[in-house]
């Protein structure tokens, strides 16, 4: 069914990448506030109309570009440039979510990286004889990172841990071999 394939391709792409709805809404709300302020400013000016002479004086002062004008302009410029850069980058980078897709015949499957991390931690803790609460796993884009703090006096098998992590990670299409680190100093329990 090719149309179903097309639907799955679209859905998987959309589920693994951010829609940027949050960022777009935030920026739009900021713009709305800015526009409200501009409108209110104009209304204020209509009610307290300055004479042309006052206006010319303000412009002349701005034109002299004294430090009192210069530094606020510099500060505002820095803030605007940084905000602009952040917004621009949000618009350009792919925005991958911490999820990955798994192959399946009938359905389209995405799994949160935290779910995979928990599964790896479970497997490692039972295989290596480490306390489950002291096995921390983070799943990156290609590779899982396993950190074990052994209970003081109870040895943890590095080989068993690496093996278990590798088997479990391979089941989720993590191509890189997991990196396992065992803390030198165990924790007292």
């Amino acid at each position, binding site marked *: 069914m090719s*149309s*179903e394939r097309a639907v*799955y391709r*679209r*859905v998987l792409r*959309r589920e693994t990448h951010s*829609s*940027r*709805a949050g*960022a*777009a*809404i935030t*920026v*739009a*709300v900021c713009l*709305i506030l800015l*526009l*409200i302020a501009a*409108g209110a400013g*104009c*209304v204020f*000016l*209509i009610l307290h*109309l300055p004479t*042309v002479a006052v206006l*010319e004086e303000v*412009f*002349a002062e*701005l*034109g002299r*570009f004294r430090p009192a004008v*210069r*530094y606020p*302009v*510099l500060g505002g*410029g*820095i803030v605007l*440039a940084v*905000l*602009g*850069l952040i*917004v*621009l*980058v*949000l*618009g*350009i980078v792919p925005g991958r979510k911490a*999820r990955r897709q*798994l192959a399946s015949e*009938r*359905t*389209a*499957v*995405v*799994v*949160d*990286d*935290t779910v995979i991390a*928990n*599964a790896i931690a479970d497997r490692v803790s039972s295989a290596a004889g480490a306390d489950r609460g002291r096995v921390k796993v983070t799943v990156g884009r290609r590779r899982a990172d396993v950190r074990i703090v052994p209970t003081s006096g109870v040895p943890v098998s590095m080989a068993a841990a690496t093996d278990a992590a590798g088997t479990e990670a391979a089941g989720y299409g993590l191509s890189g071999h997991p990196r396992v680190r065992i803390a030198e100093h165990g924790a007292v329990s």
Partner: protein
Amino acid sequence: MNNTNRALNRAFLIVVGLVLLAVGAAAILITTLPGWDGMWRATSPSVAGTVTRLWRVGTAFAGIPQVPWVLLAIPVAALILIVLLLVFIFAQGHGRTHQVVDEMTLPDADARGTLTIDVSLAADVIQHAIGERRDVAAVSVGAYRVKGKPALRVTVTPRRGADPLQVLAAVEGAAAEWDAVAGVRVPVMVHLAGGVRATVSKSVRTI
């Protein structure tokens, strides 16, 4: 899985980002580079001239004589832009539907009429199939329109200590049950979710 216009969101962010960056960069250059503040001094009289000229073009408004047109035009333009931005904000999301199968012509040639199936039926079937499993903390089922046709979205939160691949196999089984009930193949998206529900839920293992 919703119908958010992602290309539009990104285009919006890129345009706003570029404008902010350009304005900010200009302000930084003008204040820091010696050559550029001369430009400020050189151009500011003509800018001031234009603004004061615009300022003089006015009308009597609300009993106040000689209100500059610019002061009336800016709020109006702002209002139009605000409406457009609100439309943009409220166009985010959408695409949810309550029909998983819509207006299907009955397969039997003699039968007349069409058939629609509500999501709640799909939700019941899937919930019944996997909702009671010990390794599943939560199941939610929704339907969305993708490329014009309905598709199911099944979010399953495995319990702590669950084997996600086993949960996944069970969900595929539930999808097969649903296929048998519906009689037509509807695209199904499965999401194995972590998050708060998974961390708060009780662990599978009982000691």
